[in-house]
């Protein structure tokens, strides 16, 4: 029974015993187990693409009151496999004056940062690729590599729209990275460690309840980093016709596509780890540690459902509104949240014996006050905008 409950850990220990039994030296055993774990994680990442592509299309279709893909197998669930076969067999067209080396380099390096995030995501109390001391910082730093790949893709295509769109995407990614980092800093103030496992362990109450402002900002920034609607102006079909990916066809385009979905799944797991409690579920992880990957997957699916919900609901945001929103709204809001966290974490200094939920409660109240003040400021400036004479004339004419 114990073997079943601790299945994943026992499996790892048994596999290592087998390898030792074959007489291999310690470094070879470590290397082989590392390679096996890496392959499993990469396969999990690619499975994410195969699962979430049809899920996205079906969910958004149902929200728009239409059936979605339903030809491939019952309910269209193997649609991604059909897409993969299509992409493998399409001809690869390199434009005439494009820089061949750069054109080929970009799809090679765009999937690497997306996959690398899976090394530090916790799937259970002892089930993690490698619990780095600077896990969260690793995730943020790897996101920066994605930006370089996009610039290379835009430049190497010898297409002015591709270049223009690459500049805009880079600006969008840079703008939304700062509020993300500030929200993570607010969380680190509470957990006092940057390792992902430490963050999950420190969450007696999920941090989304403690600081909903940081959770919402992080969710929106993660969606913007993954170039998803409603902030996907660059790669929407009716806007810039796939933006920096214009001149890519076949498997090279599939690389960008895979990178986006792998990124999305990784972002969903990061959000569930940092803000929703990771593999914890009201004590279930202590009773049956074998179920923790399932718990993580369920939470990630929930977050992805929310992302798809956003995509189906909101219209696209115009580019100048996009970057304006990031710099003028999210950055100050995230900074205010950071200052509030810094104040709240210091509360027990005054009172030596404080339950953990008191800090959480005070933080929640503070966040609600922030939300109320923000809504007040926004509604007052919206009312001022309504009173503007130009808008009054338009409204009067329409009546």
């Amino acid at each position, binding site marked *: 029974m114990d073997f079943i409950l601790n299945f994943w850990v026992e499996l790892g220990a048994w596999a290592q015993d087998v390898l030792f039994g074959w007489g291999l030296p310690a470094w070879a055993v*470590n*290397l082989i187990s*590392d*390679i096996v*774990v*890496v392959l499993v*994680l*990469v396969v999990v990442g690619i499975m994410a693409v195969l699962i979430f592509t049809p899920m996205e299309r079906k969910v958004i279709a149902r929200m728009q009151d239409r059936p979605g893909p339903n030809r491939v197998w019952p309910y269209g669930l193997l649609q991604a496999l059909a897409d993969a076969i299509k992409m*493998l*067999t399409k001809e*690869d067209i*390199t434009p*005439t*004056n494009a820089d061949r080396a750069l054109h080929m380099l970009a799809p*090679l*390096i765009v*999937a*690497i940062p997306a*996959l*690398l995030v899976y*090394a530090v995501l916790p799937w259970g109390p002892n089930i993690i*690729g*490698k619990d780095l*001391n600077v896990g969260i*910082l690793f995730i943020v730093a790897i996101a920066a590599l994605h930006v370089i790949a996009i610039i290379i893709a835009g430049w190497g295509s*010898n*297409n*002015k*729209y591709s*270049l223009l769109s690459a500049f805009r995407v*880079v*600006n969008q990614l*840079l703008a939304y990275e700062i509020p993300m*980092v*500030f929200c993570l*800093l607010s969380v*680190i*103030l509470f957990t*006092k*460690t940057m390792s992902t496992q430490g963050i999950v362990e420190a969450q007696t109450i999920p941090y989304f309840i403690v600081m909903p402002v940081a959770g919402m900002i992080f969710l929106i920034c993660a969606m913007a980093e993954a170039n998803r609607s409603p902030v996907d102006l660059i790669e929407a079909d009716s806007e810039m016709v796939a933006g920096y990916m214009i*001149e890519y066809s076949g*498997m*090279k385009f*599939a*690389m960008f596509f895979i990178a986006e979905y792998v990124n999305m799944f990784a972002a969903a797991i990061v959000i569930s780890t940092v803000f929703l409690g990771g593999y914890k579920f009201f004590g279930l992880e202590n009773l049956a540690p074998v179920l923790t990957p399932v718990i993580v997957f369920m939470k990630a699916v929930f977050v992805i459902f929310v992302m798809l919900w956003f995509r189906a609901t909101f219209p696209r945001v115009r*580019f*100048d509104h996009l*970057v*304006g929103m990031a*710099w*003028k709204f999210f*950055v*100050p809001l995230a*900074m205010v949240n*950071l*200052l509030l966290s*810094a104040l709240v*974490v*210091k509360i027990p*200094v005054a009172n030596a014996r404080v339950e953990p939920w008191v800090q959480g409660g005070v933080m929640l109240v503070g966040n609600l006050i922030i939300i109320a003040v923000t809504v007040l400021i926004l509604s007052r400036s919206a009312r001022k905008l309504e009173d503007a004479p130009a808008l009054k004339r338009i409204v009067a004419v329409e009546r």
Partner: protein
Amino acid sequence: MLSDYNFIGVFVAVACIFPFVALGLAWLLRPKKPNPVKTATYECGQETIGDTWVQFRAQYYIFALVFVVFDIEAVFLFPWAVAYGQLGLWALAEAFLFLGILTVGLVYAWRKDALRWQ
């Protein structure tokens, strides 16, 4: 721990090999028939007008520069945040001062319309 990064090294190696495998598979399976019409640059179905250059606007550079400044600010705040539990109240005041000085910068850039995309 240094030995932790063996795993990361293996991961980077495998992640680098994966695109090669995928693209190699595609190279084996796909047709290769280039002709001048297909390989022409895409401009929504028309012939390309003018050279491939884009009027680079200073606004792109400003955003990247503001990003660098805030990125380095975040870099300074990471060790402060991790060590925060063991510091006294003066650490809070010092960080407020740090953030305050940079908020002045953000407000200045905001008021001077440097953050507006024309």
